Every structure is written in C-alpha cells, then in structure tokens.
C-alpha cells in the first residue's frame, strides 16, 4: 500500500503541497466574494459608526468617537423602534410556534390527505412580501374590506386595522402568522417523522388514549425541534421590515416603525450614514446575542445526544 502510494505522483510532501494549493484554489472564489461583500462591509460599517459620514459628502468627515452610539442610546426614536421590533417578535413568536406545532401534530394523526394540508399551509410562505401586503391591505380595507364585512355580519364593530395605532402592529402580526407559519409547520412535520411508530403502538397497548399520547409522548419527544423552531423564529422576527414598511410605512405616526426601518430612514432619507451605521451595530449586537444563545444551546443538545 505504502509502496503503491508513492509510485505515481512523486513524493508525499509534493502531493501534500499540491493538496494545499488546490484547497486554497477551491476556496479562492468564495474567499474573494466573502471579503468584498461580507467581511469588508462589516468592518467598513464599524468604521462608519464612529464617524460623521453622510451620503451628501464623500468620505468619513472626521472621527465622532462614541458620539453616534451615545446619541442612539439616548434617542427616544431609537428606543421606540427597538421596542416595536421586540413587540412584533413577542406578538408573532408564540402563535407561529404553538399553532404550527398543533397543526403539525394534528396532520400527523390523520391518515390521508396529508399532502393537501402541507400544500395549503406552506404555500403562502413562497409568496413575495409585497404581494402578501397587497392582498392583506385589501382584506383590511375599512368598510369595504372582507374582514370588516364579516365582522359587521356578526354584529361586531371592526377596528380600523392598519390605521389605528393600537391595532396596526397586531394586524401586521396576524398577516405574518398567515404568511410564514408553513415554514415552522414543515420543520415540526420533519421532527414528527423521527418519532418511531412503535412508540405510539406501545403506548396504545398500555391504554394511553390519543390525547395522552400527544401530551406524554409526542410533545416531549419533539422538544429539540421545538427549541430549534423557537430560536429560528425569534431571529426571523427580529429582522422584521418588509411587512411593516409595505402595510403601514411604520405608521400611523411611527407607531409601528421597526429598527430596520429606522436605520433605513436615517441612513437613506436623512443621509446620516455614520449614525445609521451605529444603530445597525447596536441592532447587530442584539441579533448576535440571540443567535449565540441558540448556537450554544444547540451545541449542548447535540453533545448530549452523542
């Protein structure tokens, strides 16, 4: 074997050098693009956040120190946009996790037509956000919208969905549940497939009713998937921009403006690039912290299994 190995391609060290060069060669295109469009902009964004840069004037226009950060941390606009992002996350995460779990467990209990429900619940997820916003704005239209007419038929007064500061965020959250539930639903379905059928049969033989099986067997065994879905959902919800921008433009009177739209407004409307970069970094710290919790938790869970 050793003799064979050295015969065709010359010395072992020569081949290793060849392998190293090929490794770098294979990595090179990715490394270049990664440097240009991810690492570079990240570092540049960090530099910008300490500067007085604006779009109107080129260059960094002087060192601002921690000024941008101090301004953000003492700005009520910043904190209210952070609060709106948090509120959206709090409003969307529980229904998107719990409802997706319930629907997946139910689909798993029926024998036929599973494909149909998979199709129906996942389909909205592939629709572009702007098409979703068009459809739901029409549904929410005061007086002539479908929801208003149905509530009127029930004798209820409809809220002024998107135009009422107390209802706007809830309305966008409702739309989001409809739009993205299918993704979590499919993740739960995949987790359910990993639970062996024999466990249910054994439980049934021991006299456990279907409801007990779900509570005592399915839900506990699905806990790893549930944690995964929960963390992915929190991270996804923290990135809220599209639906709010499209349906309420952050209004009424900035009552729903999330932090990404705040960055967009100060960076691209007010042209305060340095300040916007500092807000981006603060937002990044929040998302990073949540991602890190998830990463550590999933690592630990994996180690337990192994």
């Amino acid at each position, binding site marked *: 074997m050793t003799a064979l190995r050295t015969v065709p*391609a010359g010395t072992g060290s020569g081949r290793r050098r*060849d*392998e*190293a060069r*090929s*490794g*770098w060669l*294979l*990595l090179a295109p*990715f*490394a270049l693009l990664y440097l240009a469009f*991810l690492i570079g*902009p*990240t570092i*540049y*964004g960090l530099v*910008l956040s300490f500067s007085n840069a604006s*779009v109107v004037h080129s260059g960094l226009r002087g060192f601002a120190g921690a000024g941008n950060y101090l301004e953000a941390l003492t700005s009520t606009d910043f904190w209210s946009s952070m609060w709106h992002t948090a509120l959206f996350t709090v409003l969307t995460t529980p229904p998107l996790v719990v409802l997706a779990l319930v*629907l997946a467990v*139910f689909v798993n*209990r*029926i*024998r036929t037509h599973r494909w149909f429900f998979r199709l*129906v*619940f*996942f*389909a*909205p997820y*592939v*629709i*572009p*956000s*702007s*098409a979703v916003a*068009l*459809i739901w*704005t*029409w*549904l929410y*239209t005061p007086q002539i*919208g*479908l929801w208003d007419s149905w509530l009127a038929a029930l004798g209820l007064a409809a809220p002024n969905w998107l135009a009422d500061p107390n209802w706007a965020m809830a309305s966008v959250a409702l739309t989001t549940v*409809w739009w993205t539930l299918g*993704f979590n639903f499919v993740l739960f*379905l995949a987790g359910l497939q990993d639970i062996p059928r024999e466990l249910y049969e054994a439980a049934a033989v021991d006299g456990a*009713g279907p*409801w007990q099986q779900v509570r005592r067997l399915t839900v506990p065994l699905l806990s790893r998937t549930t944690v995964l879905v929960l963390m*992915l959902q929190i991270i*996804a919800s923290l*990135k809220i921009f599209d639906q709010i921008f*499209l349906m309420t433009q952050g209004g009424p009177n900035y009552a729903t403006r999330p932090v*990404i739209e705040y*960055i967009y407004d100060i*960076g691209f409307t007010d042209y305060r690039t340095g300040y*916007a*970069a500092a807000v*981006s970094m603060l937002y990044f710290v929040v*998302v990073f912290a949540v*991602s890190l919790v998830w*990463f550590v938790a999933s690592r630990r869970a994996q180690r337990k299994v192994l």
Partner: protein
Amino acid sequence: MAVTVLAPPARAANRPTAVGRDRRELFFSAFCGSVLVVFAAIWVLPLLWAVDTSLKPEGEIANHPTAWWSDNWTLDSYRSLLSQGHMLDWYLSSFVVAALTVVLCVVVCSMAGMAIARTRFPGRRVAFTVVAAGLFIPPQVLILPLFQEFGLVHGLNTYWALILPAVPTSVAVLIFASFFGGIPGELADSAQLDGAGWIRIYSRIYLPLTRPAISAVSIFTFVWSWNNFLWPLLVMTNPRTMTLPVGLSQVSSAYGIQYAQLMASAVLGALPLLVVFLVFQRRIVEGVATTGLGGQ
C-alpha cells in the same frame, strides 16, 4: 384480525378494550381532521379572495366590494397589466437575478465546501471559523456600507449589485461541506492514484454525488433571491429593471383604489413561485426539513 391476535388478553380486564380504544382513536382523528379543515379554509381564503377580486370589473367592485359572485367575470385587469405595466420586465429581472445567483452560489459555495471538508491545507480551521461566523451577521446590518461600496464603483441599478452579495452564503458552504464530509475519502485517494487533480476530483467525482445538497441550495437560493426586498428596493430605482417584489411595492400608488388591478398584480406576483412550489413540493419540504434553511 392481526389486531385481535396481538391484543394482550390477560391484562385487558382493567384497561380500555380494543374496541373502546379504536373508537377513541377514530374520534380523535375526526377531531384533528375537522380542526385542520377549518384552518385550511382560513389559509386558502385570502388567496381565493384575491383571485376573485382580480376577475371582477372595477365598477362592480365599487358597487359590491364584498360580493363573491360576479355576473361579468373578466380578465381585463390582467390584460391591461400585461400590456401596459412593467410586469414582464419585472419577471425578467427577477428571473435573471435569481438564476444567476443560484448558478454562482452553487459553484462558488460547493467549491468552498469541498476545500473545507476534503482537502488539508494550512489555515483550514481558521477558514472554517470565518465562514461559520458569517451565519451570525444579519444581511440588514450590511446594507449601508454595501450601498456605499456599490455607489463607489457605479454598480447601483445593475443586476450585479443584486447578484454578487448573495453569492457567498455561509449556510450553503456548510451544507456542501457536510455532504462532502459524508462521502468516503477513499474515493479521492484512488482518483489521485489515477493521476486526477483536485479540481477534477471535485468536479467529476464529488460534485455529482451531492445532488440533494445542490437541489436544496438551488431551490432556497432561488426563492430567497426572488423574494428579497429591502436591498433590491434600495438598489434598483429604474422601473424597467426592478425585480418583481420591488415593482409590486409601487403598484398601490400607481393603481390607487383599482382593486381588481391591485389583486391581479398580487396574483401575478405570487404565481411563479407557487407554480415552482407545486412542481417541487416534495423536494422543497424535504429541503426545509433536512437543512432548516430559508429562515430569511
């Protein structure tokens, strides 16, 4: 039959009988089924309503906005959208951008995945760590510096501004790396003995074996690129080269309260990916399940 044989006769006395159990199972399945049907109806409703509205004459919507039935079904709104608007331009832009992104992403990220999983070179661990770190950087944070970068090279309003930043994707590299890592290394060893170089080993032996990874990454990159909104909104300001989601976000100011037009735009905007989803349903669902990708 088989059930009666398997039923444990001795312990059955103090437990529910097999018949009672069957009835409970049946009842529970029926309960699940009815709940599901109700939710499925709720889920289909907004799409049905959009299609319904888009097929009615504008005048009729103004008079009876919430009537489901129309006496004058018409395709007028679609006709005028396709003949006057920029809809076809937006389809083309979105398709060109998404297709090029997919091809470049699969090629570039699979090469990187191969390098990390299968070749030994100094700095490989560092490279892996740097790639994995990319998972933690939300793209929204990079928008300002990226915008300045493309402004500097006069790249705004070009397709490249949409394509290139989407190509180096950490998730895709890690997916490819885990697939390549699962293929026995002996394949590479024996190919080397036959005198094949690493590039050849990658393209002829390893890449064809990772078809599930290629299809998962392709589908998700395509969907993600097609539906991406914030970055294209900033970069593409020319109505002729806008992508579909950006174009759609401007139609409500163009058509105002012409609801049939608005809903026809929404339906046309939703249609391409719905068709893709119908065709690749199984693959997409499997892809979500195995990779947990697409969390935007």
